[in-house]
């Protein structure tokens, strides 16, 4: 049984750390946080061509994480595969012992580094959750029986600061119906907004992992220039604090902010765990956890 599932089911605070699969075959750096943190976190997330930028395949990367002693959380995007490829990759994940899934639609191809690629989206994230349920029940999406059923712990994404929020909540409900067991949010910086979102969530047993992110100098500069265009907002005082600082100093301030947010989310029980993004760097990840008292 997955450690992530066990942690969440036991009501313990789950920490998931995001890794950075390489653009290439050099995997040492990607795996560095695994050996350093495998005993302190529930899972290591492996994004799937994040931001539509081509990188090492998540199922392969996840297997390496497993070999290094960590428990992977495999992202799977609808952007790059039709239903046959999604299903066969899911079976592939299952036979490699990969259980935790984060099922997403995926950023559009024109936003990434292969803007002329054909976008697929044969399934959307709700339908992909249904596909996973079907496979677990022993049949593929065309209704054909499987010879050996996979077991998964499927999760999905929800956007607390979506504007408008109502269509997002409708999709959230569909994802719950389609079998999502846990949800991951984009980075949370504004706790007041996050509290309001929590109040609007329908009562259900699904678990919520709040996104925590260490901001970098580029992001700080964008925000300071008023060009921030993300599905999460940055409080003006944080933007002001980071403005004009040297890159390493921004990172250190970003680590401190991430640590504070993580600590408060845990103390206030605003989420069942966190999904921590710190550029895949062991030093930053450890400092955030240290700041948060984990």
């Amino acid at each position, binding site marked *: 049984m997955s450690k992530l599932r066990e942690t969440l089911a036991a009501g313990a605070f789950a920490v998931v750390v995001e890794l950075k699969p390489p653009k290439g075959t050099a995997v040492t750096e990607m795996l560095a946080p695994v050996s350093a943190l495998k005993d302190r976190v529930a899972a290591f997330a492996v994004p799937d061509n994040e931001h539509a930028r081509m990188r090492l395949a998540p199922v392969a990367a996840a297997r390496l994480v497993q070999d290094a002693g960590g428990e992977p959380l495999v992202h799977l995007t609808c952007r790059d595969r039709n239903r046959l490829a999604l299903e066969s990759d899911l079976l592939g994940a299952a036979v490699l012992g990969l259980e935790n899934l984060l099922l997403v639609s995926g950023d*559009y191809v024109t936003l990434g580094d292969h803007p002329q690629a054909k976008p697929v989206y044969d399934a959307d994230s709700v339908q992909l959750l249904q596909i996973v349920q079907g496979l677990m029940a022993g049949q593929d999406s065309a209704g054909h029986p499987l010879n050996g059923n996979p077991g998964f712990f499927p999760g999905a994404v929800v956007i607390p600061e979506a504007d408008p929020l109502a269509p997002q909540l409708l999709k959230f409900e569909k994802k719950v119906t389609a079998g999502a067991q846990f949800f991951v949010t984009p980075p949370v910086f504004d706790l007041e907004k996050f509290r309001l979102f929590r109040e609007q969530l329908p009562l259900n047993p699904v678990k919520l992992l709040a996104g925590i992110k260490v901001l970098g100098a580029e992001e700080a500069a964008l925000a300071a220039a008023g060009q921030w265009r993300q599905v999460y907002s940055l409080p003006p005082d944080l933007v002001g604090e980071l403005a004009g600082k040297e890159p390493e100093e921004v990172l250190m301030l970003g680590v401190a902010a991430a640590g504070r947010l993580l600590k408060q989310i845990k103390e206030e029980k605003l989420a069942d765990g966190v999904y921590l993004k710190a550029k895949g760097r062991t030093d930053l990840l450890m400092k955030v956890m240290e700041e948060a008292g984990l």
Partner: protein
Amino acid sequence: MIIAERKPFAEIKAMVAPYKKILIVGCGTCVAVCLAGGEKEVGLLASQLKLALGLEDKRLEIGEITVERQCDLEFLRPLCDFTADYEAIVSMACGAGVQFLKQLCYLQPIFPGLNTSFIGVNNEAGFYTERCRACNNCYLGVTGGICPVTMCPKGLLNGPCGGTIQGHCEVDPEKECAWSKIYHRLELEGSLDKIREILPLHPHDRGTSPGTVIHPAFKRRYGAHE
């Protein structure tokens, strides 16, 4: 209607460069409305070619003709004899028209004068936007008259992706999020229940190309075609 844009002049000029006598065939329906391939645009292209080649001391004889619709045999048949005198044809129709014309006038090479863009609407002269992907499985009755297959770049059937920012699309911030609009419309109609059910995977087999539609009356008359 079909929306198209004329190909860049240099591309057309290069295509017809080997020939001394060409025919430019316009189409008087969709592409005439969107100011890309009607009678006026045929005349404009012919003049541009003559001028440009004249500056290079080359001579190109150009015939011009525009038919009502190049996608319709009724209007194409009379062209067959007329085209025999030309070495090559430039069709200013959509991709369907170009292919249909070549099917009839198969002796000469044919070149497309346009790039076919989409099925769309004429907002006003010169401003055309896409509305339909011809997926052969219309959802408009469920989604408040806004097509999720076309108006959402990802073609998502069960709600917005996570990229909506202030009601606008992650792909093009100038465009409204299709699912924000669908939700808003259905809310106004009081029929949000229509989108609470999960829509199943899209039947892409219905859109396998090349598509064929046979009207029931045609089937009755020419049963052998079934």
